[in-house]
């Protein structure tokens, strides 16, 4: 904003210093995590500040091949997380994009349904842990990908619908009316006109949901207890229950479990403001 010298406030100095200090702490923690992952464990324990004496990928290789002690196949967990996340995201998109479109049309029923989904946002997943786990196991879906994908979809669909409704509400009505004049059915309008113009909402929903799903811990711990399905977050925790923590291998695992988020941030950074703002303001 315009900063005429006459309005320059002395208060800026502590505020700027505070922002800079916070920023340095973020950068430092990030670089510390990355360079520590190249150290050997004795090196790490001797001094956790120091830079690695040489770049060694040993921790990564051990993690990826499961040659840690005890064996923790981080590579496998990453793949499992990729399957669970993509399955959940696809499910969330398939439900909430059409649902948001329908709910953006005004009628008594759509308003009622909208408030229903709004209220669902406030049902906290930890509060329904026990019966949900028993429902999933009762359906024979314990320790399976689908058994965690379905709850993840259910947790994230309500907020996604609210977002997608807000998005379609801001959609120009004239376009749709023109399409109807040309004789397209409601379904035709959605498939041929609205959907192709809406990669933005797909990106927004991806931004909001991918971190939720990738980073989830509680349900993953309870529902995924075998190595062939366990995701990366509970996988990383196995290190802490192992005796004599292998910090350097943990750090390599942490970098790998953050990597998708980092890549994701680099790609979508420009859209994140838009996505989060739509959620918080427009509703």
């Amino acid at each position, binding site marked *: *904003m315009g*900063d*005429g010298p006459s*309005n320059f*406030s002395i*208060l*800026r100095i502590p*505020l*700027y210093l*505070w*922002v800079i200090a*916070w920023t340095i*702490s*973020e*950068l430092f*923690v990030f670089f510390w*995590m990355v360079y520590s992952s190249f150290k050997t464990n004795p090196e*790490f324990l001797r*001094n*956790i500040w120091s830079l690695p004496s040489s770049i060694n990928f040993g921790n990564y290789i051990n993690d990826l091949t499961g040659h840690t002690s005890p064996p923790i196949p981080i590579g496998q967990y990453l793949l499992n997380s990729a399957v669970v996340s993509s399955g959940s995201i696809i499910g969330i998109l398939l439900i909430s994009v059409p649902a948001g479109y329908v709910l953006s049309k005004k009628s008594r029923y759509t308003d009622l349904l909208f*408030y229903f989904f*709004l*209220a*669902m*946002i*406030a*049902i*906290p997943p*930890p*509060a*329904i*842990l*026990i*019966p*949900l786990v028993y429902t999933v196991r009762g359906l024979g879906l314990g320790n399976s990908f689908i058994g965690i994908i379905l709850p993840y*979809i*259910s*947790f994230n669909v*309500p907020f996604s619908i609210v977002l997608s409704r807000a998005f379609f509400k801001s959609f120009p009505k004239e376009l749709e009316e023109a399409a109807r004049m040309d004789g397209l059915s409601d379904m035709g309008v959605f498939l041929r006109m609205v959907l192709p113009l809406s990669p933005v909402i797909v990106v927004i929903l991806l931004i909001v949901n991918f971190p939720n799903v990738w*980073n989830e*811990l*509680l349900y993953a*711990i309870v529902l995924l207890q075998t190595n062939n399905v366990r995701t990366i*977050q509970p996988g*990383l*925790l196995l290190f*802490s229950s192992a005796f004599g923590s292998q910090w350097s291998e943990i750090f390599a695992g*942490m970098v790998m*479990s953050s990597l998708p*988020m*980092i890549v*994701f*941030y680099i790609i979508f950074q420009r859209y*994140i*403001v838009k996505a*989060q*703002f739509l959620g*918080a*303001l427009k*509703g």
Partner: protein
Amino acid sequence: MLIFVLYPLFQVFSLSFDNWSGFTAPVYIGLSNFAFLFRDPVFLQALANNFIWVIVFLVANNAAGLFLAGTLDIMGKRSARFFRIVLYFSVLLPSVVVSYLFLALYDPNIGLIDSFLRAIGLTALGSTEWLGNFHLTIYSILFSSIWQYAGFPMLIFLAAFSGISPALYEAARLDGASEWSIFWRIKIPMIRPVIITVLALTWIWNSMPFAQVWTMTQGGPGHASEVLATYVYREAFSGFQFGYASAISVILFLIIFPVVVLFVRSFEK
């Protein structure tokens, strides 16, 4: 979604009146679970910690976000962009990862914080067990979480500030208002609806911590950092007290319920 959210919600209420170990059929025991809850010191500790968490997190996280955003808003565009990108970054990291990082930072022997305190001569402070101390532990975990998530309110408040017409500031400046009073008298009132929504969202998303507490302390030492979600998990899946754990879940649900009203209201316009 009905199967995976609403049905379990009803179940959790009905189970909370049962005695159930998971192996035999649940037995109805009325309100005994709840009566026992309020005589259970661990539950009371978890409840108190959870209240501390909600209140401190809501206030500190959003205040930090507000001041970060307020400061970025009066900076040059390019530097504000740089700071915004860096400050939001940790929001996306898995909380397990951030918790491990802080676990290492807080370690009294090899940890960065204590060795730094020792290095600058504060040897007495330099042996503080940030996570091992009964009184400090929950605040240490809270701090790591606020550090991680302050970028979220910052991002949204910043976007809201940039939507305010600069003409308003010009008028205020002509009247001799300082930057400080522009912040309090114009910017904050202008984005009030956004602040309410962000409060509701941070309440919903951050009032039942699990990953941070579980990764750093598992509720320890003793039960000093126990929160409701870790206690539910412990009672249900190591103690096999499903009825009792359901009663705790009901309390968990009640903590978040008031926000529904706030939230639905903020969308009514």
